[in-house]
């Protein structure tokens, strides 16, 4: 009990200090947040061209997505990515392994993964505080694209899947970062991951646009939870039992990835102390 309380206090302190660090560079941070909204305009133009909006024969739907659905899907993936993307997590771990600052976690009574997780939670929360207003404005301006009203089950599913998508994103990227214990240089691995993830998470196009033989396989991977699943839930692509199934599956992936991370860290540190240093 005493130890649970004190490790909670450690994580709370890591959380506080990370928030403080994040606030140091407010101006840069706010600016980058705004810059991230610029692609919205081009994406909306792109999809309106694909659907032939404003021409004499606009297409009512492609693969069961209307033009409105598509723009709504795109805007929602932005929200999902705001939860699941982890800029600098893998490369940060790799850097610490390479330059030896990883020693901090090995000589002090702290846990690297817990430390990084709380650091990330702090960064994300600061981000949401700053990004809430611009997101609100964008969604208000784009309200015409949201044609259905979600049920409360969809809302609950959406929020839960967003929170879990944060964990999935964190665990995948930290696992990649821990690969640095064996490879030292992981930037090409990162590049492959980013390319695949852009495609397999549904960030580029909805996953149900893929041919069915591919969808079967993509469905088995965890990447879809980082973009497609939350959007599909709120857009009503799943019925209630479908939502529940997806959430359970996502939770199982979190457990699996967590175990994989633990193992990678355990054996990685062994590898490091046996071969590196």
């Amino acid at each position, binding site marked *: 009990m005493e130890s649970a309380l004190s490790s909670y206090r*450690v994580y709370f302190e*890591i959380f506080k*200090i990370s928030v403080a660090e994040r606030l140091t560079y407010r101006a840069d941070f706010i600016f980058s947040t705004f810059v991230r909204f610029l692609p919205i305009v081009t994406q909306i133009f792109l999809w309106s061209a694909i659907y032939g909006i404003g021409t004499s024969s606009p297409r009512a739907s492609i693969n069961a997505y209307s033009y409105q659905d598509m723009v709504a899907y795109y805007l929602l993936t932005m929200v999902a990515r705001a939860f699941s993307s982890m800029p600098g997590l893998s490369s940060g771990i790799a850097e610490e392994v390479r330059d030896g600052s990883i*020693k901090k976690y090995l*000589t*002090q009574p702290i846990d690297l993964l817990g430390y990084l997780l709380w650091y990330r939670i702090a960064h994300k929360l600061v981000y949401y505080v700053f990004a809430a207003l611009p997101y609100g404005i964008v969604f208000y301006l784009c309200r015409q694209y949201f044609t259905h009203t979600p049920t409360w089950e969809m809302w609950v599913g959406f929020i839960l899947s967003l929170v879990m998508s944060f964990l999935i994103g964190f665990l995948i990227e930290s696992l990649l970062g821990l690969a640095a214990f064996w490879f030292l240089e992981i930037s090409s691995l990162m590049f492959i991951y980013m390319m695949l993830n852009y495609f397999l998470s549904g960030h580029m196009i909805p996953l149900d646009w893929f041919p069915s033989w591919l969808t079967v396989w993509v469905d088995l991977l965890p990447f879809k939870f980082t973009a497609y699943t939350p959007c599909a839930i709120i857009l009503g692509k799943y019925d209630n039992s479908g939502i529940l199934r997806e959430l359970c599956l996502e939770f199982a992936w979190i457990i699996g990835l967590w175990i994989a991370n633990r193992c990678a860290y355990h054996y990685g540190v062994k590898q490091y102390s*046996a071969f590196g*240093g």
Partner: protein
Amino acid sequence: MDAVVVEHLQRSFRVNRQKEGFWAKLRGLIKRESETIHAVKDVSFRIEKGEMVGFLGPNGAGKTTTLKLLSGLLMPTAGKATVLGYEPWKRENAYRRRFSLLMGQKNQLWWDLPAQESFRLHKEIYRIETKRYQDRMDELTDLLEIRKQLSQPVRELSLGQRMRMELIAALLHDPEILFLDEPTIGLDVISQNKVQQFLKYYQEHKQITVLLTSHYMKDVEALCKRVIIIDEGIIKHDGLLTDVLSQLNPQKVVTLKFSEHVESTQLSEYGDIIEQSPMTVKIRLGKADIPGVLSYALAEYPVEDVSVQDRPIEELFAELFSRRQTTEEETRAAVASM
């Protein structure tokens, strides 16, 4: 009681050898050639509780590797070591709460934040009670004269100030054993002095065990009674600094000043003349010969002033290690030319 016990510790690394040239690199893609480097070949020593020991040697001698082994960052290839009864590479939390490793070239404070934020995190990591934490902070910031800079972001501090903050971070949890790797590297003389004085005072008062590596012989001279000299992964000397010095250098430099011109002396029969002018002679003498030579000189020459000095410690170590390095370079050159 021994705080550190090291028995026949060995640590080797495998490194990939990269050959020069296009074809050699291409061949390297198929067949990797690796080489085993024995960073620590055979190291044994004991350090008693409350001792402050200097760990000396040239670059690549195995000092830092040994410190990394003792702080649990590395596993040994062979041999045994216990620190405070723990096997370091098991990395038990109980052990990690009782020691500290400070590397002069690595920074562990949060760069963009005031150091006190990092200290507060340490308070939680090491579970220091609030009252105790306050007392420790007061004590350490006073000793290191750095209280004012506590609320300044670390990146704005001078190197000397930052090093003192690093010391606070390393000592906040009252470690019983402290491994210091080049704590004064890059510091100016004043900061170097401050760190030295602090370490001396702190160690004497708390009776903590310290193992210190440094390139600055001044640090070692000021702080350590005992030194361990390591070279090529093997311990070359272990003992009191004064004993090691006299072993390394059984000679002293004697300077004689004359009251009038002395054209020539017979002193070269007793030792090497380093410097000679009509008014002064500087001569290197074996310690045992000094009394005899002095009485002879006083009787024979118009001696006005006498001084007897040890050779500077830097010079001795430089000589010791450069002797090794030149022979090594020669063998390397010989191998390369084959």
